[in-house]
Structure formats: C-alpha cells, structure tokens
C-alpha cells in the first residue's frame, strides 16, 4: 500500500502561472526544488577537479599506488568536490556496501574526471562493468583501481 503526499518542487509555482509576465521569475523561487534537488542558496564556490593534474603520467603512477582504502578516500574527495561545484546540498545516502551512494550520472562524471587526470579518453567500457560498482564510492574505487592497472598493462 502506498501512502500519499504531494511534493511541490518550487514554492511559488502558482504565482508563476497566475502572473505570466516578463518578470515572473523572482529571487524567492527555490530553484533547487524545481530540479528536484537541494542546492546552496549562494552561487557554488570554485572547487578543484581531478582534471586539474598537470602531469598525467605522474598522476597515473600516484593513483596506481593507492591502497583500496586510500582510493576510496580519493573517490570520496572527488565526489565532495563535484558536489561543491554543483552547489548540491542533497543529503548523502548509504549504498548496500556501507559507503556513500552515487547516482549513475555522478559516477560517470567522476570516472571521466579521473580518466582526464591520467590522460586517458575514458577508463573503461560501461557495458562490461557490473552495475553495482557504479552505485557507490566503494564500488567506484574498486573499479578505478582495476581500470588503472589494466590501462598500464595495455
């Protein structure tokens, strides 16, 4: 049985529809809710990205040397930076493996940043990866370590 309540993403929607003038969009609209997200009220500050590495070879060597736990911390730090840049204030949820849950699009964004930081166009082929690995920080860390080893081997 499902219980119900209406979630209105965006206080002021009715005002928007009732006053369709050129000035309908005012600062009191909660834009994050229109996108189904909690966002910071101020513009997001600049946060470093993994792609900022100036020496891809050195970065590859550094990442390859990370232990599983250190790689997990690295991925978590990248996730933090991505959330900062996106101004996201959404609460973090835990995945089944106990680490932070990651949306699929966020996972793809993080993997692409890491690939860029080590000078690769991409780290892996998504259709060959277990779906579960893309859903959590721990899974992503495992995937990155595996891919980096393979990247060097090939």
């Amino acid at each position, binding site marked *: 049985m499902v219980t*119900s309540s209406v979630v209105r993403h965006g206080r002021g929607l009715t005002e928007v529809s009732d006053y369709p003038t050129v000035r309908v969009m005012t600062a009191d609209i909660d834009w994050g809710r229109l996108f189904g997200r909690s966002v910071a009220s101020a513009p997001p500050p600049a946060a470093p990205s993994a792609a900022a590495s100036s020496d891809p070879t050195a970065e590859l060597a550094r990442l390859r040397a990370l232990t599983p736990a250190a790689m997990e911390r690295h991925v978590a730090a990248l996730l933090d930076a991505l959330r900062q840049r996106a101004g996201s204030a959404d609460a973090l949820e835990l995945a089944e493996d106990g680490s932070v849950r990651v949306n699929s699009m966020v996972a793809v964004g993080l993997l692409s940043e890491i690939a860029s930081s080590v000078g690769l166009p991409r780290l892996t082929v998504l259709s060959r990866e277990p779906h579960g690995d893309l859903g959590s920080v721990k899974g992503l860390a495992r995937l990155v370590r595996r891919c980096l080893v393979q990247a060097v081997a090939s």
Partner: protein
Amino acid sequence: MSVVLPPVPTLSAAWSAAFAAATAAPSGQLVHVLMTVTEPAAEIRPVRTAVDAVLADTGAQSVETVASTIFPVDLYPVPPLAWDPELQERDRAVLDGAATALYDRYLQALPLLRTADGNAFGTYFQRMISYPGPGPGGFNQLASRIAALRAMRRTAAQGNFFNLDLAADGAQPPRDQLEGGDAAGAGLQLLRPGQKRQRGFPCLVHVDLTVQGGTLHLFAVYRRQNLLSKAYGNLVGLSRLQAFLCQQTGLGLGQLTVMATFADAERAEFGIRRIRALAADTAAAVAAAAAAADPNPDAACTVGNRS
C-alpha cells in the same frame, strides 16, 4: 484509437493515468497517447517510490537514471537566480557559467557514456547540445534556443511560436536566426537526419517549445514510450529540462505535454500481475494526494487550474 488524458497537476498523476489506461487495454498497449502536466515540477513521491521498487526488483534503470538521460541535473550547478534582461553582469556570468559547466561536464563524460548499452548512436542530451553527434563538436541546440528566447525577451516580442525546426536538417541555422525572435519557439531535434533504423534510439524524437504570455510550454514527441521502464523517468527529465530553459530565459514554467505514438505497459517484461498491482497502488496514491490537496471534492479544482 487515440487516448487523450485529461490535464493533471503532477507528473506522477499523468504517468499513473497513462499506465493505468495501457494496463487496462486488451493488449497492454495504446497508440497516440497524450498526457498533460500543468505543474511539471510537482510530483507525488510515493508514486515514484513504488515505480522505483519495481524497477529495482527487476534490475531495470531507476527513475533518476532514466531522468538523467534527458537532463543530467547532477552536472548542473543550479544557480539561485533566473535570467532577466536587466540582470547585473556578475549575476549573468553566474547563470551563463552554470550552463557552460553543464555542457562541458557532459561532453567530457560523453566518451564514457557512449560505451554504455544502447548509447552507441548517441544520447538524448548529447543530441541537444551537440547535434547530430554522436560525438562532441556538433550544434548546441539548447544554447541556441536560450539565446533566441533571451533575444525575444529583450525585445518583449512575445507570442505564439510553433515548430520551427531550424536544426532538423543538421545544418547550423544562420546567425541572424539564432539571435532573433524567429528562432525563439523552435524545438529540439533528437532524430538524426537520414537515420534509417526503424527501431531503438531515439524514442524521443522531438521537443517543441512554445512561448505564450511569458510562459514556456514544452511538448515532447515519443515514437515509443515504455511506460514502466522509462516513462516516469522521462517525465522527470523533461520537467527538469523545462525548468532549465525557464531559469536560463526567465520565462514562466508552463505545461508539459507528452505525445506517445505508441505506449506499452510492458506486460511481457514485467509480468501482468506486477503491473496490475503497481497500477492500482499508484492510482490510489494519486487519489490520496488529490484528496489531501483538496479536502472538499465538491469544490472547484484549485490545484494546477490555470487558464
């Protein structure tokens, strides 16, 4: 027989009505289904929860994952303001920077995204920002429409704009059309010119934008809607795309209409008992939400009633 569903205030109610209609059809399938959401950002969360539970049970993509194929909200640093002709330079930079960040981050992720099952021919959002693709370097339809709509707002030349598919032939429109009001109501083309495949991507073939009275309405055409595995997420994604366009142009959020030329309740994939149970549960959730929003059912409708 066409199925024109009555306009409803939430995307959840629109999805529920379409799903219930298809589930009740003898074949589990319908042709020419039209659903209209009057408040596209409004959602009845228990409906999504119920849909997600079935999707998770069967290993299908979640609502959020499907939604991100239309609009990857996680890559968009949502600014706390909307565009206005008199916006300060600093605020305009924040707004434009957010859109640019969205495009750049998506294009950076595109090589990896294209290795996912079903993405070999491109993705929906890629076709919106790099048409026709499948790689980067194509025509950014979203940026073009935003520029045109802003130009229209600057001159206050508002009116009805219909389907002006400037990008349909794959060529970049002339610059004067990009910056002028003529392009303001143009849609987003998702079908690649000369595409010969009869099935598969893209199911969403066109997004039409209509501006009337300072409000932006979005009309999406699907040549196929898989109602359980995709349709709810598609509605969420389209509503976010519409919100993005409204924020970037300062236009009001109008209605969201989806036309599915073929809609399938997916009996074969999910099982008839499961989809019947889901249809009943979600219809009950929608009814409960409507009752909670309007405790006096005899009163005139006050939710989403806009003329």
